[in-house]
Structures are given as C-alpha cells and as structure tokens.
C-alpha cells in the first residue's frame, strides 16, 4: 500500500489540532476517526476516504463514478491509477482504476469501471454504487504519465476502458492549454461500447488540434476510418509520423502487445509507453509443492517442501514468533506478499496477497513470498 509522504501533507491548523496530545487522550483508545465520522462519514486523520457523488452509465457494460476524496487525498498525475476499496460481502476489497478526470482538479476524481461479470469489485460498483456511498482510496501511483515537457504532438491508443488514463491526459492537457496535435485512437468491440463520446466531441470543439479516431473490432463499418484490430498500415494512415512522437497505449494485453510489435518494427520502441490490465492467474492445485518460498525480510529463499510455512521457516533457520502451533492463537500470523496456501486443517487453497496468514496451519502452494 502506498504510504503518504509526511512532508507532502500540508500541516494545517486542523491537522495540528488532531495531533495534539490532549485530544489524542480524549479520543483514546479508538482514535478520532470514529467520532469525526459522526459528522462527516469521510472524516479520517490518515486514511483517504471518498464519497460517491455521482453514478452514471455511459454504456451497458460500464459505470462511471465521480468521487470526492477527503483532505488526505494528494491528487494525481494524468495516467496514474488509484486503489478503490469497497466492502463486498463483508470483505474490503481493493481494485485499481485510472482516474479519467483532469489532474488539475484536486477536489474530485472520475473513474469508469468496466463490468467483469465474474469479478468482485466491478459488479459491486456496477450494480450497487449509489451517491453517498463511502469508499476508501489509496494515493495515486504509477509511471504511465506524460513527460515533463509535453508541449508537442502526442499519440494516444486505447482499447475498452483503457481510455480512462488517456482521457485524463486529454482533459489535463486541455486544462493546461496544450498547443500540440493530439491523436486519440480508441478501440472498442462495437459502437455501443464507445466511452466518452459526447465528452470527446465537446473537447474536440474546444481543442482544435485534437483528432479522435474510433475503431470497432466486431462491427463492420462501410467507409469507416478503422475497422478490425490495430495494424501498422492503419496506424500509418492515421498518423504517418507515429514513430517520431511520444505514444501511449493502454488496453487489453493483446492490443498492447500488437502495438508494441508495430513500434518495435519501426525501431521506435523508446517513444512508446504502455500499460495493460491483466488479472494475475494463480495455479491453485493443492498437491502442488513446487516453486520457491521466499522470506523477504530475512533474505532467504528455499525450495518449497510442502510443509507448513512455520516448519519451513524454522527449517530455514528463521524463528518466527509463534504460540500454539495448532491454529488457535494467531501469534505466528505474518504478512504474505503474494502466493497461494493450503490450510492444512481444511485442505482448501486460497490465493493471498498483502494479507496475513497463520504460518502454523498453512502450507505454500507454488511460489510464495512472505514478509519475515
């Protein structure tokens, strides 16, 4: 999780009051957040909480939310992403989305979430998000951002909801009075899946050197500029100088890979920045005692023997704090960076990332990274 750099947070009077010892004692041991939230549900001294201001549907397969974060939000750079945490069936689950709004607006952010019917967070937001709901946010992070000097021409390529970081770039450039030519090439399965149609029309009217090209991969368009998937010929037709100008691509892995191939063939890989959204796939075979078990704090890696995490740690010469050794007391709980583990009591395998696990009753399945 992203940690707020202390120097970056302005030391406001309110913050100083919240940090006074007297107030801290008065609200101890629960902390002031619980009481502040009586007045404002997004109140928090350290956490970024946001209120859902607006919920709208641009297409049948997506939902667009306007969020208003509390004062802890440090803003973002166009192209970065932010973790959005919502409670789904009792579990706070975080997924990462790129704001589509202008980075010049530090009061609110807009995200567009594509519905993945088998997902966890996107169906929750799609079907259940309502104005007034509170979500938690991480600070923004990511390297998919505009260069420091970006006065010249730009080429932006996206597929599906990959349009969001590019939309943020466009809106930010517009707010900054950008003068260069910007070409946006946006792919979607059909016309009905096109996102930000009216917004881009309006932006086009205000930015004379914005060119928007829509491509549809599953719809035949007689006379259309772009039909089917991306290709070198199509890109050359739309933007003959494509190899010379900074280019950003964001979308599904296939689109990103195809774009990278075209730029590589043109010897222009250096001018292409890409971002893809993929779901990490974990092999969850309970019998699988393969892979490497890494103890990141100790700097030790061992071949996964299939024994419990506690036994393997001890065999590696690490002595984690532990108590009952039968899964009762949770004294041995430690943070998992990533991996899957089998609960030796039930035989069930669970994928874990950035959460705690009981070392004494869990055996790693495949590669496993543990913060001890």
């Amino acid at each position, binding site marked *: 999780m992203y940690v707020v750099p202390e120097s970056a947070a302005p030391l406001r009077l309110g913050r100083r009051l919240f940090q006074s010892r*007297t107030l801290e*004692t*008065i609200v*101890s*041991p*629960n902390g002031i*957040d*619980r*009481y502040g939230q*009586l007045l404002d549900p997004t109140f928090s001294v350290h*956490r970024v909480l946001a209120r859902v201001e607006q919920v709208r549907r641009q297409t049948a397969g997506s939902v667009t939310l306007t969020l208003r974060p509390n004062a802890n939000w440090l803003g973002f750079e166009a192209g970065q992403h932010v973790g959005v945490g919502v*409670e789904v*069936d*009792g*579990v*706070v*689950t975080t997924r990462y989305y790129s704001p589509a709004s202008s980075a010049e607006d530090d009061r609110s952010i807009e995200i567009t979430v594509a519905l993945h019917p088998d997902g966890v967070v996107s169906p929750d937001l799609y079907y259940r998000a309502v104005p007034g709901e509170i979500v938690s946010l991480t600070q923004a992070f990511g390297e998919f951002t505009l260069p420091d000097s970006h006065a010249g021409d730009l080429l932006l390529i996206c597929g599906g909801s990959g349009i969001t970081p590019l939309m943020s770039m466009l809106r930010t450039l517009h707010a900054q009075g950008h003068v260069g030519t910007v070409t946006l090439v946006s792919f979607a399965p059909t016309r009905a899946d096109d996102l930000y149609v009216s917004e881009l029309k309006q932006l086009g009217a205000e930015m004379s050197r914005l060119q928007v090209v829509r491509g549809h991969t599953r719809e035949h368009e007689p006379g259309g500029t772009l039909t089917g998937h991306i290709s070198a010929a199509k890109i050359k037709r739309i933007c003959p100088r494509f190899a010379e100008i900074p280019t950003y691509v964001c979308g599904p892995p296939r689109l990103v890979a195809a774009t990278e191939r075209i730029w590589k063939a043109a010897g222009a890989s250096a001018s292409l920045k890409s971002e893809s959204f993929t779901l990490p796939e974990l092999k969850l075979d309970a019998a699988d005692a393969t892979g490497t078990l890494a103890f990141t704090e100790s700097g030790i890696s061992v071949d996964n023997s299939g024994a419990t995490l506690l036994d393997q740690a001890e065999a590696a010469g690490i002595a984690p704090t532990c*108590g*009952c050794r*039968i899964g*009762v*007391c*949770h*004294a041995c*709980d430690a943070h998992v960076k990533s991996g899957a583990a089998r609960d030796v*009591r*039930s035989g*069930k395998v669970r994928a874990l990332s950035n*959460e*705690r696990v009981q070392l004494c009753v869990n055996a790693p399945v495949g590669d496993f990274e543990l913060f001890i």
Partner: protein
Amino acid sequence: MPATATTPPKKRPPSFKLTPEQIELFGEELDALRERVIEDLGQRDSDYIHKVMKAQRDLEVAGRGLLFLSFIPPAWIAGTTALAVAKILDNMEIGHNIMHDQYDWTHDPALDGHEFEWDNASTGDDWRDVHNYQHHTYTNVVGLDRDMGYGLLRVTERQPWAPYYLGNAVYAFLLAVLFEYGVAVYNMELDQIRLGRVSFEDKREEFDRTWRKISKQAIKDYLLFPALGGPMAPLIFAGNMTANVVRNVWAFSVIFCGHFPSGIEEFNRDEIIDETRAEWYYRQVIGSGNLTGPNLLHVMTGNLSYHIEHHLFPDIPANRYAEMSVEVKEACARFGIPYNEGSMPRQFGSVVKKLVRLALP
C-alpha cells in the same frame, strides 16, 4: 527394528471418557462445522460488528454528553449507565472478539485484530499473548493456564492450600472491583521476575507500555472529562469511576462463570503431551461452561455466554456461536460428552461457593 514396536500409550486426563477413535471422530465433526461457518462468513457478520461498534460509539458519546448535565440526577444515572454499557461493549463484544482476529477476513483496518486497542488497562499486545496463546492453548491446565486463579486465587483443589488463601473470597472481591488493573498487571507476568526467569530490565518496556495505557485512560476519565465539565467535575469523576467499576465487576463475573463453576474439568500438564487437535477440542468442551439467558445477556457478555463455542472456535466471529452451539450441543449429546451450561445466577453462585470453600484446606 521389530515390526511390532509400538509407542507407549499417551497419558490422558481421567476425565477423557471417549476412546481415541471417538475423540478423532468428534474432532472431525467440529472441523467440518468450523469450515462450514468460515465458508459462510460475509456481509451479515460485518454488518453485525459494525452495528455493535456504532451502538458503542453512540452510547459513549451520549453517556459522556449526559454526564455534563449531571446537575440533573436522572442525567447522571442515564449517562453513567450509557457509559458503563459502552465500556462493556468495547471490552467484550468488540475488543475481545476483534483481538481474537475474528474479523481479520474482512480486511477492514478498523477490525484488524493485531492493531486494535480497547478501553481497558491491559495493552492489546500483552492481552494477545497471555490470553490468546496461553489461556486458549493450555485451557485449564494447572501450571500452564495462568487464568487458573490469576496467581492470586485458589480456584481448584489442585492448587495446594496455604494460609494466604484464607482471604480467597476477599481477594476475589477486590479483583472484581479492580479487574482491569488486575488483568493488566497479571498480563505483564511480573511473577517471572520473582521466579528469576527474567530481569526487571527485560520487563521494562512492557511495564512502561502498560503504565502509559493505564495513565492515559485515567487522565481521560478522571482528569480531562471532569475538567471539561467545570462545576460538574466531581459528578463526572464519579460517573466515570462508576462506569469503570461496573464494567470491571461485570467482566469478572462473566469470565469467572466461563471456567470455574462446578462440574468443569481441570488438567495436569503431563496429560496434554502430544495432544491432537481433536483432543484439544475435547478438552475445551469439558473445560468450559456456557450461560443461558436472553439475547441481551449474550450481547453484553460479548457472546462469552457461549464459552464452549468460543473455546472451540476462538477466531470465528462470536455472533455465530449461538447457531453453532446447537450443533456442538447435539454432537456432545451423541458422543456422551458433558456440555456444561446454566443460568448466570446459578453458575455464578457455584463460583462463589467454590471460592469460599477453597479458602479452607
């Protein structure tokens, strides 16, 4: 090596009436029950604890607010009551259960069992060690479970009598009134210094931490809030102290009903060597007792009224114990395992009787 070599049978408590095979079957049933409930955890459990936390906060704010109006006697009574209930909810249904990691699966930072602090003199860290590990692993094992008398009382015949124990009932009364401090001191395991196992310096940090916790609570309840009330100061002071004492006596009563009523078994340390998970389950059932009563009793005890279920499944959300108890009780009946339960007056009466009787040899 001869193929017929066998290990000598393990020494088991005389109170274990089942065969090892039966015990393992019983354990399998409880494991299955545990898995079923864990699979089913979800929104309703998260909603429940959030609802209790909201009630606790509202009661605390209302109680402290009303105490500022202490010049009206009913406001003092209502404020003190609300604050006492808030403190009980904080310690029992919220703090004790969250610190058992019952809600870690929610990944909600406010419900994080390793971070939570409660409105109690004992620090969360000490509590997690002494209570979650020592008491829950070695339940009712004389010499290992330090809850067996808290190093202060004689709660079983297995503790040899000494003239000191003539005051058993008096010590118990004092412990009830000062319970949170008693537990805080006891959780620091200062007797380890007396026994020469650790030095005072080793305990220094723990001692400082506990002292900071105690003084913060005392400054809050006995200095800051009375001072904010101006002329109401003495009444606010009295209200806060009453709320703390009510919480102490209540927590003491509930906890003593959990393991010390008559009919609950105790164990020796040589009887739990190489204990299996199923044997541990069995020992938890016959070493704990439940309280029967209305819903309000269960909430106010933090569901420690389902003490047997809590000891079987300490990291399962306590709001599930009621429904789990139906199956646990049924399985116990089928296996012929005693399931100790009774009303609070009955169980507590039996505890008092025991404490008085054990004052004498």
